[in-house]
């Protein structure tokens, strides 16, 4: 049976992980490679690295880091942040990234999705969507959630799929950082609509939040950052818990 995926997300700035990390086993918690290896050991199903500086000057640092990660880890990983062109994707996949995640640049220029899909395959393109509920409508935000758009979230994810997106990484800004649980309503709606995998993101605070999102929506994966970094929810414990809920887990 196909398993639901648990995906830790690492924020990268100048080649180092940011947000505090509290792993006793790590000698250098700021080293993304060390942290990535620890997550693989714990049973993470995939990893996402998000370059939050994403400036041109830092590109070579990121490429070098991706090469090191690809050398060291034996599970799939996605790299995102500041990807604007097919050339960016080329250099990241050459360095060893399995997938890339695009967000603002895809909204600005939707054909970037089809350009990447036709060159590298749909499986390579993760379209990240930051969404926020305004009155009753879920709208798309860009630039790390700072810039509102008038685009409806459901319209955008459908368009992204048509253009060749291989996966949708859906982050609810209403829930991100709140530890009050994934946004079940929009995740349900998006996952129901799509024929490609949907990764739920934003709001994980307890093990029950993960079982809720898998039991009430068709999400294929759940992504979180701080609950894993601070070891508030150790991945092996989370996976054991989800198995007791009869959720298919590796």
């Amino acid at each position, binding site marked *: *049976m*196909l*398993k*639901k*995926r648990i995906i830790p997300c690492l924020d990268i700035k100048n080649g180092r992980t940011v947000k505090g990390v509290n792993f006793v086993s790590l000698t250098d918690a700021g080293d993304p490679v060390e942290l990535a290896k620890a997550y*693989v050991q714990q049973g993470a*199903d995939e990893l996402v690295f998000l370059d939050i500086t994403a400036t041109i000057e830092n590109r070579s640092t990121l490429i070098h880091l991706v090469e090191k990660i*690809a*050398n*060291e880890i*034996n*599970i*799939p990983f996605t790299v995102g942040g500041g990807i604007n062109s097919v050339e960016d994707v080329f250099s990241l*996949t*050459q*360095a*060893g990234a*399995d997938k890339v995640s695009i967000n603002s640049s895809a909204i600005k220029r939707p054909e970037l999705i089809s350009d990447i899909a036709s060159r*590298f*395959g*749909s*499986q*390579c393109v993760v379209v990240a969507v930051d969404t926020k509920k305004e009155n009753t409508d879920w709208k798309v935000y860009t630039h790390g959630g700072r810039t509102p758009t008038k685009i409806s979230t459901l319209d955008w994810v459908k368009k992204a799929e048509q253009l060749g997106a*291989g*996966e949708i990484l859906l982050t609810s800004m209403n829930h991100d950082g709140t530890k009050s649980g994934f946004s079940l309503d929009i995740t349900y709606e998006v996952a129901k609509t*799509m*024929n*490609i*995998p949907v990764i739920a993101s934003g709001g994980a605070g307890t093990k029950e939040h993960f079982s809720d999102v898998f039991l009430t929506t068709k999400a*294929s*994966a759940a992504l979180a950052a701080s609950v894993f970094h601070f070891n508030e929810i150790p991945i092996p414990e989370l996976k054991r818990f989800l198995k007791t809920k009869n959720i298919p887990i*590796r």
Partner: protein
Amino acid sequence: MIAIIKYNAGNIKSVQNALSRLGAESVVTDDHNTILNADKVIFPGVGEAGSAMVYLQERGMDILIKSITRPFLGICLGQQLMCSHSEEGNTNCLNIFDVKVRKFPPTDIVPHMGWNTIYDLKGEIFKNCVDHEDVYFLHSYYADLCMNTSATCTYILPFSAALQKDNFFATQFHPEKSADIGDQILKSFIEL
């Protein structure tokens, strides 16, 4: 020395990284002599069947691959290209395995992406594996079950997760992305 066949498909770097983690020397090459003289050959790939076959045929690599007598491992698109025919681009393939490659019916999410269970394992590359371990898949096309099936997986329907005939091995999943179990499978291949 293991030759990794270079052609117009991706995912070659991660195979080379996996081999180097396991201490095996490899070279990415499309040189016929290097490939023929290698101890083992790996035929990886993420890509599209039709354009990959055209590329191989234009360079005489279709005939070369079939003539190899050393241990040979196709991965993902590599496995599909070793079958008789693929629905992807209605492509005649290498016909090492007499089995057709079809697109998954759209009754569930396609591609089949993520960790899934393999069972009914046969053959030397699975000698250190037990049934019902999870490995990483990423594909929209699958090979039917057949007499060469050496591992089975079920997604929408049962299909060949691995194939073997004589020196020709193939996996639909990605051993290079399948954590410890994937390393075990690659190690068993390296030690053949």
